[in-house]
Structure formats: structure tokens, C-alpha cells
């Protein structure tokens, strides 16, 4: 699991009601699968306004506001639309991501001031999302088959799952631990360790609320413990199942933002 919580568009769907009862005796893989669902697949689609505050080591902050639209497209595939509202100089800038289960993701970029749509070739997803401490992978989720999972500890409230990469060369961590809430299956914290055995990165859910029946991370934080930087994402106007048109997630709507974000 390890799917981090950036996107509060977590869906619990059917599992939600029965989750606490069935939890006992779940394997690590099952826990991770459910956490992944809870974190990234809530509802058929979703929308949220995000205020991203990037904090530098010296305490200085930069703020960005954007709106995210997400549409589940099949059991695993998803589409994301990220539209920047502020600051003024990046207003109308937009990203489009097609998350594909069976191949690399597709990504596009719209830079209004350059009147330019550019496709971004697939690459390392563990790189900074628009200069923040979150990774692209935190936004869209890490494939649950990319790591081996083991249940380290189970308390009354939490599963603690340890994850080790199947291909250590492809990632910067040696392993990471995730604390998953037993009632809603939303990960509350993930901690990443390097090959020297040191904790160097943390992603946390600071505030979780129920939105339209979906437990939703309303505030999350990613910290780069070595560089001393951190980023907080605050979510507002979260809604699920708003009936997003699939056509929104196309190049045409990069140049002309959909109503869902432009108001």
C-alpha cells in the first residue's frame, strides 16, 4: 500500500460499511489494497480545491492554489485534471494526467502564457509535484504491486505495514512504513527510510473528515527531513460523484478550462 493521501478524493465505496468487521485477519496485501481504494478511488469522480503551502528550510513559504478533478476510468485507470488558480502568474496553467494500470502514465501540460500544450514523457514518478515535497506518485498513487508488504503490527486502531520495493534501484527509499487506520483504511502516516536506515521523509494526514460518506483527507503534509522542507495541502470544496464529463480530460480542455474549475 503506501498510497499516500494527497488526493482526498478517497473513496471507500462499498467496503466502508463492513470494513471494521472484516478487518480482523486481513493479510498485508489485502490491507494495502483497501487502503489504496480508500485513498485514491473514492466515488466515481471527485473535485477539490487545494491550497498548497510549500515551506522552505528557512521558514519562507510559497503558496499555490489549484483545483483537482479526478475521474475513475475502469477498475484501475484514472484521469486527473489539475488547474492552477493562483498566484496570478500561473493562473490557468493546467496539468492533465492519465493514470494507466497497464502502461506508463500519460501527462500533458498547458502553459497559457506561452500558449503551449506540451506532452510530458513518462518518467520517474517519485519526483516533486510542482516543486512541492509531494511526489507525483503521492498525487496519483503508487502501484500496489511495486512493493512487497508485511504487517508489522496491529493495534486496536491501526495497522502498521512495512513495504519494500521489488526493484530497489528504481526508488530512493530502502523501505517505508505506513500506519493505516482500521476503521476507514485511510493511511495516516507514511515514513520513508534510506539505505543507511535513516528516516528521511514523512507524509501525514493531518485532518480527516467525512465528505459525502467518504472519509477524506482534508489536510496532508509531506516533509523532506533532510532538506528541512515541507508542504501542506489543504483541501476545500471537496465533492464526489459530480458526474464529470470524460471529455474534460483532453487536450482541448487544457486550452479552454472546464466550467468545473474555472468558476
Amino acid at each position, binding site marked *: 500500500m503506501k498510497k499516500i493521501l494527497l488526493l482526498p478524493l478517497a473513496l471507500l465505496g462499498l467496503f466502508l460499511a463492513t470494513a471494521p468487521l472484516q478487518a480482523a485477519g486481513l493479510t498485508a496485501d489485502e490491507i494495502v489494497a483497501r487502503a489504496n481504494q480508500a485513498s485514491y478511488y473514492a466515488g466515481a469522480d471527485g473535485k477539490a480545491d487545494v491550497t498548497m503551502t510549500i515551506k522552505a528550510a528557512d521558514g519562507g513559504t510559497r503558496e499555490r492554489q489549484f483545483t483537482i478533478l479526478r475521474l475513475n476510468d475502469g477498475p484501475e485507470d484514472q484521469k486527473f485534471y489539475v488547474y492552477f488558480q493562483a498566484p496570478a502568474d500561473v493562473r490557468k496553467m493546467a496539468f492533465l494526467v492519465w493514470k494507466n494500470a497497464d502502461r506508463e502514465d500519460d501527462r500533458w501540460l498547458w502553459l497559457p502564457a506561452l500558449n503551449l500544450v506540451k506532452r510530458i*514523457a513518462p*518518467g520517474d514518478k517519485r519526483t516533486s509535484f510542482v516543486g512541492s515535497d509531494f511526489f507525483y506518485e503521492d498525487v496519483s498513487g503508487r502501484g500496489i504491486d511495486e512493493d512487497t508488504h508485511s504487517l508489522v503490527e496491529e493495534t486496536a486502531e491501526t495497522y502498521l505495514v512495512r513495504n519494500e520495493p521489488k526493484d530497489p534501484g528504481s526508488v530512493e527509499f530502502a523501505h517505508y512504513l505506513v500506519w493505516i487506520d482500521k476503521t476507514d483504511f485511510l493511511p495516516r502516516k507514511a515514513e520513508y527510510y534510506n539505505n543507511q536506515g535513516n528516516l528521511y521523509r514523512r507524509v501525514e494526514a493531518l485532518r480527516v473528515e467525512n465528505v459525502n460518506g467518504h472519509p477524506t483527507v482534508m489536510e496532508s503534509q509531506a516533509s523532506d527531513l533532510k532538506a528541512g522542507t515541507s508542504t501542506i495541502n489543504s483541501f476545500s470544496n471537496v465533492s464526489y460523484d459530480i458526474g464529470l464529463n470524460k471529455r474534460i480530460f483532453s487536450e482541448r480542455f487544457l486550452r479552454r478550462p472546464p466550467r468545473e474549475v474555472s468558476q
Partner: protein
Amino acid sequence: MPREDNPLMKLRLTDLSLRFPRTVLLLAALLTLLFAWQFPKVKFDNDPENMLSANEPVRVFHHEVKEKYALYDFVVVGIVNETDAEGIFTPATLTRIDQLTHELLSLRLAENGLPEVRDFSRGGQNPGGYRSIDLNPESSWQQALNVAFNHQPNRLFDEQGQSVIIGRELIAPSVVDNIKQADLGSLKLEYLMERAPTTLEEARIIRDDAMNNPLYAGTLVSEDEKAICLYIPIIKKTYSHNVANLVRNLTQDWPEEDEVYITGLPVAEDTFGIEMLVQMATSAPLAGLAIFILLLLFFRNLSLIIAPMVVAIVSVICTMGLLIGLGYDVHIMSSMIAIFLMPIAVADSVHILSEFYDTYPRFQDKRETIRYVIGHLFRPMLYTSLTTMAGFASLATTPIPPVQVFGLHVAFGVGLAWVLSMTLVPAYIMLLVPQKKLQKLTPREKKEIPAGGPLNRILENLGSFSTRRWRPIILLASALVAIAIFGISRIQVNDNPVKWFSPKHEIRVADRVLNSHFGGTYTAYLTLAETQPGICDCEANSNAMSIEVEQRFAEKYPAAVATFREKLAELKKRYGQISGPDVSRAFVELVELAEHLDSKTTALWGELADEINYLNPVGLNSRTLHERIAPLEEIPQEYKRILHEYVEPQSELEGEELLEAALEITDLYTADSFVDFVYEMQAELTAPLFKKPKILAYLAQLQAHLAGNPVVGKTSSAVDSLKKAAYELNYLEPPGGLSQSEQAAYQERNQSYNAIPETAAAVAQVFVQLEGMKKKDSLFHLITRNYQEANVWVQLTSGDNQDMAAVVKDMQVYMQENPPPTPMKIEWAGLTYLNVVWQDKMVKGMMTSLGSSFVVVLVMMMLLFRSVLFGLLAMLPLSFTITLSYGIIGLVGKEYDMPVAVLSALTLGLSVDFAIHFLERAREIQLKTGNWLETAKQMFKEPAMAISRNAIIIAIGFTPLLLAPLVPYQTVGFFLATIMGVSWLATLFILPALLTPLQKIAFRKPEDEA
């Protein structure tokens, strides 16, 4: 025994020592033990940066800059391949570099306390796992030195056991960002060498990518394609020697063609610190040994000559013990204490020995001989010691803390050496020099003295020469001074810590090789910031908007423009004098107004466009389009008609193409959005300094100017990243099958984007892409996160202070002649610049210190001799010596650097000694003879012997320093010989030559008294 006060006072210390020799020896031993006890507490400080006090503004600023831009000290590792036709870009070499990078990144502390790195060796014991590394030297001598100096070669981890290499900031092909074109016109963001190449083609792609990136060509890869540089950032400079050793260890099995060079100021400085300690442990004892052998040659009495050696050793131990005990770090300067103290300490006791040796035959009694000798020498020795102390203590007036500590401690050591000469030497002779041995020597020597040894004979001849040929001597001396002054005028004040190593030292070699391939291994940072940040020129903004809105909208929407300008005028009145948050409030109000203005026209067009945009293109034609649009009540019929009229003539269009066509016409109207206009204006007018295109253009212009300086190999700024990213974002791959001219047109089009984007918003949007590169925050080494300040990484091929200073000066002039569009202040930081500052302070500090100690010594001399003339005469040899030695430095083109500067204090201290001895003895003898020529004759016997022996012992004794691999030690060795030679000449030629014509004035007083 004469009971006059004077001799009693003079001899009190010595008499005590003669009476209680055992106690004196015991006390000396205890004292030595006490101070030696402090040694284990020693802490070393190899950092020349500490030449500046920690709160020195430039140093504080340097650290602010490092912090602000997350800059670190680098160990520069260059890999050069001169043999392969492909240069450095072969799969084999790149693979090695890739592995080295990952080894460095994987460095960790194993449980056995040794470092370990990931094992890449195919045949290694543990491929894919970790292998242990031990950097301890194999030679047991080196190991012992490391123990003595508390230097742990395997110390590559901080207190928490973390690697001292800052992995995330490592600059190497495998971990630096690359932005390049990929399939289907897409843009790829990855590392320059995502994986090691396996074929020559792959290697060439890496080469081309690197060469096409202005941030890498000349820094990471050499433009001649023969070399690659890794910049290894470390948490503290003092780890650089160990990190350099680690790299040497990791690359030891590389083939010869892939030469590895390690340099950079941090390595140079740290390595110098470590080698200087080694020198402290080898050069100083070697010099001691040489002095010992010379003493033995002169005096042929082992037991006798142990005395000066003991004085020297005890003074050095006590002085170093004091320094350590007081909690000072042993710095580059203080490591030289032993070297400076030894000649001075030896000098005092050589005078005693020399006299003792020559007069013993007369007394045939140790006690009486000592009393006689000390009685003679007390005053000159006291004064020589006091003047030397004054010379060194004056260093305390320099603004350089390590030099202050050095000066005061040497002064202490000189004082101690005097006390020891007065006490320990007599006590030692009484107790440990067997009478028998002296007697055995005496008859032989006694015969020799009248006959005169070769030295005696030479000296006597010289004596008569000096007095008879005083005119030519003075003439010649004056001529020499004139030449020397010319030489001094040509002195180049310059320093470069890398040049502290001898030319064949591996660091010097690396420095030469790498600076010939790259933009330079010396780093300076040029920072730019607004002079008055945060001040909003609201009036100008308002006016700019007023003009712009008129131009864009007046024709079509005169009423709206009028309303808008009214609002602007009102806002200007309300907010005009204020700044900060009010600016955004003003813009909020403008957006509200703009929304209102748009609502009647543009917003409706927007809605129509949205409707079209959301239409399913499947089966859409112009008929169905109108059917879908017609029912929309909120859209004015007029708009629908305009749309209809535009689409109708293109009735063949269907589906997506039809949608595009329909949107073309709506776009025409939605472009007239006041809301967009306000946001656009906000982005342009409130843009931080370094998002403004014209400021960035100025920065680029500055860089271009800097690059014209021959010492500047390369400059990098955020503008370079910006242009590169803008180019790659806008790049269009020419389709296949184009003619040459068509391809050229493509090329030209693409190249036109290799530029600063035209608006602040465009700049901002490109910068956002750079913020999100694979290597996070690397952009912020060159620009602050708020884009208000910028940093230019300036690489110099020379670390000479002169060159750096010239660049600084040049920039100043340039900015005066080409002022920036907005007032900006520029400031420099970086180690190369720091060295300029402390050297400047040092040169000025040394001048004042030399000047003030000169005056102090002159006054002391006048008081001592109770004569202005003798005071002036006493200053003569040292003035002559200083003038001549610095004249030589100027003439041979040796640069005035840190060691040379400090040596002026030693010159002053040492060369005044001979003059004091000479003049004091001359007066004394003159009292007896009453005839100057007779006095001069006598002077060239014992007194001249003592002076000559001293000169020879010190000059030759320190020649081992010339073999040291560190230039400052060589300089000291050379200088000591020069000082001794010149002041010997000055004392034995110029003084008698001057005294001959001046004898009437000089000796009038004593004659009158007589």
C-alpha cells in the same frame, strides 16, 4: 666578587641558577611536563576561513548566501581521458563514473565502524550488497601521525552516523536533471545519465545532451569532451581531505587512461591543514636536527650543545602547551610556532655558548666563565628578547585572530627562552657538562684561537675591510636599498591556498589539469538583490494599466474603459502611498469590476464557448451545432448569429474540426476579457524582480560581461536554466523529408525560443517547470524561492586573490557604467572571494603591525642605548634586511602572501638582535680601548664570531624546510636564510662602515665620561 648593583641585578637570576642547579633543572622539567600535559587536549583547525573572525561581515554574508541558496563546499573530482578518441564519453568510462556516483551516494557507516559502499564489482564478494572500505594508511609512520594529530581517515560521518556527503545535492551526470525532447514531441525530464550507457550511441546521446545544456557544458563536462567533473557537496569543509581519500580509494582500480584529479579550495585547504601538521612533526624536528649538527660542528662538545637544544625544545613545548591549555585551536599559523621559535630560542643560547666556549680557556672555571659571559650578554640578550617579543606581540594588532594568537604566543615563547637561557643553560652547564671534557677541549682550542680558525681569520679581515672601505660599503648599501625599493614597488600582493602546495603536489597538478579543461574549479558567488525590496510603485503601476487598457479596449468598449480608468484613479488615490497587502486588495477590487464589465459581453461569449466545448463531436455538423445552441436562452441571439455566419461557409466541417472552427470565433470575443486583463497586469506589474524579463535580460548581460574576463571560465544563473527550459518546451521537431532551407527555418524558429520569455507570467510558468524537476530545488541554488534575489555561480580558472579582486573591480565599474533597470545591489561570496577579503585585511594589518612594532623597537633601542644615534643605528640592519628581503621578493616575482606577510615580524625580531649585540659590545670595548679602530678589530673576534655562528646555524639549520612539499614552509626556510645573511652583512659591514665616520659623535659621550 664585584658588589656593584648593576652586575648583581644582571646576575641575580644566573647566580641563583648556579647555586641551585638541581632545583632549576627540576623546575624546568616540571614546567615542561605541566605544559606537555595539555597536549592531548589539542584541537586542530585547518580552515583558512578562520583567518577572519566569525562575526566578520563578509564571512557572515558568505554563510547567509550559502544558507539562502543551499550551497555547500564541494570536493571537485575530475575524470579525464586524453587517450580515447571518444574522450570521456565511452560506455566503459561513463559506467565507472556512474558507479562511483552511486558508491558515493550509498556511503554508510557499517557496524564495525568502517565506511561501506554499495558493491558494483562483478567479481566482488558481495555484488549488489555493500563492501567495506578502510582508508587508514598502510604505513605505520602515517598511522602514528594520524594518532598524534587525532586525524581519523575513516571519519566520513557526522555525530549521528550520517554520511558527510550531501547526496541530494551531488552534482554528477547520473544525478543532474536533463530536459530533452522525447517521442511524439513530448518532453522528457530525467537525469542526464539515467543509466550507464552500454553502447557508443548511448554514450554520444549523453554527450550531446550535456553539451546542449548551458548549465553543464564547461562545468559538469568539459567542452573538449575529454573530462567530466563531479562536485561532491559535504556538510563541512573539514571533511574534504577524507572525502578526497575516499574517492582515491574508490577509483584506485581504474585504468590509467581514466585519470582522476581531485581539487577545489576546500580540499586544498583541508589537505594543507593536514599536511601542515605532518610538516610540524617532520620539518621542525629536522630543522632541530640540522641545528644540532651545526652546533656540534662549531663547538665539538656534545654535552655543551645540548643546552641550546633543550632551551629550544622546552620553549616550544611550553608555548604550544600554553596555546592548547588556553583552549586555542592549532591553526595554520600556530602550527608554525615551533619553526619560528626555534631559531630565536637557539640564538640566545648560542650567544652564551659561543662566548662561553671562547672565554672558558681564560677562566678555566665553569662558574666564573658563566658569570663573565652572562655579565656581558645580559643586557643585549634582554633587549634582543624584548625587541623580538615586541615584534611578535605587535601581531596582536592585526585584525586576524589566528595571527594575533600566533604573535602573542611566540612573544611568550621568546620571553621564556630568555629566562631559560639565563637559568637553565647555566644550571645545565654546572650540573651536566663535565669539567674534564671542557679541559680536554681547551688546550686544543686554546692553541687555535690565537692562530684563528678559518672563520676567525675571515672575520678579522672583514673587520679591517669594513672600517677602511667604509665609503664604498655605504655607497653599495645605498645602491642596494635603492634597487630593493624598486623591487618592493613591484611586489604583487597575491595569495591562493592551492599555491601553498609545491608545483608537483597532486592538488596543484589537479588544479592545473582541471582548470585547463573546465570553466574553473574556483567558485565565487555574485548575488543580486533589490536595493529597496517590497516597495511598490503604485502610481507607475496604475499609469501603466491605464495606458494598456486604453490601447487594448478603447476602440471596442469605450464606456467600459472609461469606468475602468475611473476605478484606477480612485484606487491610486486610496492606495497610492501604501504598499504591500494593499496592492493585492486593489487588484481584488479591479477583478470585481472587471467581472462586472465582462458580464455583459465577454462572459456570455465564454458561456457560449463552454457550451460548444462540451458538445460531443460525434455526429456533429453545422446543422446539429445550431440545434444545440439555439435553445440557450442566456446567450444573445446576436452572438448565435455571428457564430452561425462564421461556421456556415465551412459547412463541410464535421465533428472535432467543426468544434475547432466554432471555437475560433468565440475565442476572438473571449479574448477581450477584462478579468484576464487584470490578472495579466497583476502578474506583470507585481512580478518579483527576477521574474521580470528586463531584469533577467540585465542579468544575462552581466553574465556576458563577466564571461569576457579571461579568468572567468564560466557563469551560471537561473537565466541559463530558464532559456534552456523555454527552448525545450517550445521545441518543434522538424518533420521528415524537409528541404535544407525548410529545416533551417525550423532550426531558426526553435532557436528563437532559446531566450527569456517575453512576459513575467511566461517566465513564471517556465520557472514552475524547473521547480518540479527530478532533482528538487536545484533551481533555488541560483534564485531565491520568492524570486527577489539571484545568485550567479562564477567559476574562475584561477584562485589567485589578484584575479578575483580584478573581477570584483571590473564588475563594479561595469555596473556603474551600465546601471540596472531597477536599483540593485551586488555582493560577492564564496571561498575565493573570502580569501581576497582576509588577505586584504592581512596585508593592511601587517603593514600597521610592522610599522607600530618598528616604532616600539626604535624607542626601546634609544632607551637601551640612551642615545638617539645608537637607537637609529640599531634599526639600520633590520631596516636594511626588511627592505632587501622584500625587495628580493618583488624582484624575483614571488608574491606577497600570508607566510611572507607574517615573516616581516620574524625579520624584525631576528635582525635587530645582531645589531644590539654588535653595538652593545662595541660600546663596551670602546670604553676599554678608547680607539674605534682597535675596538673594531676586537669586535671582529669573539662578538663577530657569536653573530656569525648564529647566522650560519639558523640560515643553514632551516634549509630542510626547503624540501617541504608546502610552499609556506619553503618560504620560511628561504626567508630565514635571507634574513640571516642580509642582517649578518648589514651588521658586520654597514654598522662598522657607518661607525667609522660617525665615531666622534657615536663615542663622544663615553669618552667624555672617561
